[in-house]
């Protein structure tokens, strides 16, 4: 997509938003950025990034199957994401972060393979494969935006309810259990939240690039602050800014959205990391006589 870029950013925004599909892209991107940043913050803390990536990957066969069967791709993303999350929650070793990796990896391989199968079954769909894997902001309908918004609102409500015990269980499972926190069930609830969030994000970034919103903003923020409340707020801000700048850049440049999202988020991470290193160095120099 290449519009004519002027240095008047407000005029550019107005131009983009006069196009219904761009308006929908901004709406959908903003909606998914919020749960992505919040759920992603917990995912990074719990070190379940691999499970998160797999839950996103499962969206690929989900969407491909849904398109093949003639139901909307969004339903496919969500249904497969939730099903896979429930499967992980039932795995005997699925409680913590570490031991489950081989089972999760198996599911990820199966998901990619069956996704390619569904793509092959639905002949003529091959053009859409790249959008499913690497993201697209074209063709997001208003109905899709509403569905994304409702699902995100439900996910955020659940997260608000369980957030504090979930933090306890993530940081200090043994003590949380002694305090009566249902650590195991919370782990399952979190996986379902992660599945739903990955399904939402995958529809914007593509199944392969969900980490642009799910990992990079929270990881960037954890370099900068150790306070949970600030971290969560900053993570949301960063994710939303990333989406907006990426949509902006993708509209006015010949390069795809997935590239911009990932590159901008990664750039933010590198800046934060370098900034932190410099500040720490200065701090040490100041302490030294």
């Amino acid at each position, binding site marked *: 997509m290449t519009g004519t870029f002027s240095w008047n950013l407000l005029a550019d925004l107005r131009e983009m938003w006069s196009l219904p599909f761009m308006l929908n892209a901004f709406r959908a991107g903003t909606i998914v950025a919020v749960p992505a940043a919040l759920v992603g913050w917990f995912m990074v*803390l719990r*070190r379940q990034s691999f499970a998160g990536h797999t839950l996103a990957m499962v969206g690929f066969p989900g969407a491909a199957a849904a398109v093949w069967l003639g139901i909307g791709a969004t339903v496919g993303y969500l249904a497969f994401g939730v099903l896979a999350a429930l499967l992980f929650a039932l795995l005997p070793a699925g409680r913590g972060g570490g031991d489950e990796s081989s089972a999760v990896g198996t599911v990820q391989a199966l998901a990619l393979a069956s996704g390619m199968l569904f793509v092959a079954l639905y002949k003529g769909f091959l053009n859409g494969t790249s959008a499913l894997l690497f993201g697209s902001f074209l063709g997001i309908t208003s109905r899709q935006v509403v569905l994304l918004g409702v699902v995100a609102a439900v996910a955020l409500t659940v997260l*608000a*309810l*369980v*957030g*504090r*015990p979930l*933090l*306890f269980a993530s*940081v*200090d499972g*043994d*003590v*949380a*259990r*002694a*305090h*009566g*926190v249902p650590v195991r069930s919370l782990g399952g609830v979190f996986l379902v939240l992660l599945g739903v969030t990955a399904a939402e994000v995958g529809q914007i970034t593509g199944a392969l690039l969900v980490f642009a919103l799910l990992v990079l903003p929270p990881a960037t923020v*954890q370099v900068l602050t*150790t*306070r*949970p409340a600030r971290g969560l707020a900053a993570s949301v801000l960063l994710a939303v800014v990333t989406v907006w700048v990426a949509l902006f850049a993708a509209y006015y440049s010949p390069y795809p959205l997935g590239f911009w999202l990932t590159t901008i988020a990664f750039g933010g991470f590198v800046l934060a990391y370098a900034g932190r290193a410099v500040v720490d160095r200065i701090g040490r120099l100041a302490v030294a006589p």
Partner: protein
Amino acid sequence: MSTLPHDTDIPYHSEDPHRAAIPRDDADPSATGIPDHGEDLRGTGIPPRSADSAEVLVSVVDATAAVGGRTVWSHVDATVSAGEFVAVLGPNGVGKSTLLKAMLGLVPLASGAVRLLGGPPGRANRAVGYVPQRRSFDASVRVRGLDVVRLGLDGDRWGLPLPGKRSRAAWRRVRELVELVGAAGYAHRPIGQLSGGEQQRLLIAQALARRPRLLLLDEPLDSLDLPNQAAVAALIGRICRVERVATVIVAHDVNPILSYLDRVVYLGRGGAVSGTPAQVITSDTLTGLYGTPVEVLSTSDGRLVVVGQPEAPAHHGDRHGGAA
């Protein structure tokens, strides 16, 4: 795991071997100015408290615990009274941690009974501070020590912690706790970047957050260097005395805590012996407990060394990850 005789160093309070047995009376107003540790309480006018006069917080009666179908220990009796400092001792693999978990209701009993604060185990856990045996926090855990302490206060509550009066009161309590354990200098740093001793102090602060009447500590001195062991032991002893929190501490090395102890529970497979350290850590008592000759030697610097206490047989495995 080694099946060779295991030696445990036990320092003896040579100046006054019976001092640890002198009870304190929480209800006695004359006891408010309990002298600092190391002073002789005899002659201060504090009447000795008989064993049954204090409120019993924990009672374990003829209990048998089985984990994964294997009996860990059986016919164990133990009590903890208000304000007491009690150590659970015994060789590796004998199930000391399991005894704490049974008190909390985290491990069901095969037979026998546990009463915790007047009810079945598990019901009153809110009034108990628990520090489980642990590996330290991973260096990548970027959560402040302050937040870890705060979780002990209200981490089990559902819903968002909104800013306001309650939140300010919570942070006041957290700062108070951090001061109490002497962690003010580093509590704002990510807990994963703190030393083992610093983490242990913050975890004790976390366990104290709700002003529990009972503190259960599982190997809190494990993997600390000697100066830190002494410092954390002194901290726990001070908390037990000053904050009036009954404390049960699991230890495989009684070295750093002996001078603070009121009673010990020595655990064997077929039962437990409890009493004052001077009563229990003797050749006769331990030989009777283990059914095999055990000798308690006294070294010239007043330490006790236990020789010949049996290690758990190797085929029983080691639930703590093979530490010998």
